[in-house]
């Protein structure tokens, strides 16, 4: 083997040399957690971001199954989507607006305003879920069950999967809004919950478009 001894300045004076005052919420890539056993708040935002990525992959798998199944079998029958879905979409979009409002109130220390708009968001979320159930009933009334046709199968699977994830989001809203938080600050908790909420909203718009256009 050729001479490959690499002589270099010995790296024992690392970047940790002059001890910077450790900050509780940590710094950037150099890894500066280490002040105390306190977990930095931003970790919850990291966590929900990763969770959203995982959930997105789950839905992408369902959507690619949708696309393949539609192309492969010659038995795909299009059907008219229940009209209430449009109303549900508007309700969910509105709830994203109200959650932003709620956070703004919190930022201005207006606790009452925060709780008001946070409650409105939660109620809108519940209305959305109720609306989805009505949409299901309309499907059944039209004779479209889970196994009636691949197009109806995917309708139920996609809306059910989204609805279940949204239900999780509603539970998060309830928890953050009215139950005692232990490790998270209210600011972080509302950031995390609202990120997830916007994700549910955007995901629904995406799914709705797929169902509309892929019909």
């Amino acid at each position, binding site marked *: 083997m*050729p001479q*490959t*001894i*690499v002589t*270099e300045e010995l790296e024992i004076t690392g970047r940790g040399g002059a001890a910077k005052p450790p900050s509780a919420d940590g710094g950037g890539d150099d890894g500066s957690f280490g002040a105390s056993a306190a977990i930095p708040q931003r970790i919850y935002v990291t966590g929900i971001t990763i969770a959203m990525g995982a959930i997105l992959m789950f839905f992408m798998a369902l959507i690619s199954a949708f696309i393949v199944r539609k192309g492969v079998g010659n038995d795909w029958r299009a059907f008219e989507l229940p009209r209430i879905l449009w109303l549900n979409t508007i309700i969910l979009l509105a709830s994203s607006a109200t959650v932003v409002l709620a956070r703004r109130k919190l930022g201005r220390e207006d606790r009452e305003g925060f709780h008001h708009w946070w409650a409105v968001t939660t109620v809108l979320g519940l209305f959305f879920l109720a609306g989805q159930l009505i949409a299901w009933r309309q499907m059944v009334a039209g004779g479209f069950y889970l196994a009636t046709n691949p197009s109806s199968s995917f309708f139920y699977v996609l809306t059910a999967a989204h609805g279940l994830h949204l239900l999780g989001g509603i539970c998060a809203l309830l928890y953050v809004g009215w139950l005692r938080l232990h490790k998270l600050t209210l600011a972080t908790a509302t950031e995390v919950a609202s990120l997830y909420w916007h994700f549910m909203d955007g995901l629904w718009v995406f799914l709705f478009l797929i169902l509309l256009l892929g019909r």
Partner: protein
Amino acid sequence: MRLRKSCSGSAAPAVLLAIVLLILVGSTLYFHIAKTWWFPPAITPVGHEIDRQFMITLVATGIVFVLAQVALAWMVFKYRDHGQKASFVRGNHTLEVVWTTATLIIFVGLGVMAQHAWGQVHFGGPAPGAVPIEVTGQQFVWNFRYPGPDGKFGKLNPKLIDASVGNPLGLDPNDPSSKDDIVSPDLYLPVGHPIELLIRSQDVIHSFFVRELRIKQDALPGMIIPIHFTTTTTGDFEITCNQLCGSNHYHMHAMMHVMSDADFQKWEQQQEAQNAQ
């Protein structure tokens, strides 16, 4: 460095490892050169091409295999702890670039070389005058269907499938084309003719494989998948199922008989006569 004496300076593990690796390399080289257990002779031109590609890959990977195992054995022996100081080396950029590039060229090069044989099997349609034969897999038998003198395959109806009355494929008796279809539990081919096998399944996924053809194709329910080849040698060859299809997967066996033109026509006439009865 104050590890236990038994760990440092001992040549025994290094020697033992060298012996084991040399036996590994030696036996592997022997079995490959002697072809102790090997592919049966190929009976298609594409099969010979595949064999050539296999040998090239074997030589390339074989050289790497021998060098890597020997290098491992040698390094472990030479650099065993006998009181020396380790060389403080973080890496070597040039070496990294060189061996990365070399590996990339060799690996991708092998892949590029293999494309032609793959294309022979799967790109393009059947040669003109190809004999079409439908291959149907089901739990746990193969059936082979020939179109008969009219050259057309009759319609199949799953509702009519009943092996006990001699209709394992569900041939529709109302379709005039199906009357002269020949259904056989074994595959008969005329040597030297281009063949088109239409592979399908009645229930779960099976896989049609004949070693000497060097061709394997999964039989997917819901699809008809064509494969094309020409045989060069007569003989009897075993057909196996190569995709787990249920309990008797191991027992889904048939024979492929490659015969001269004259013999094949005789066989066809025999089958047609039986159909007429």
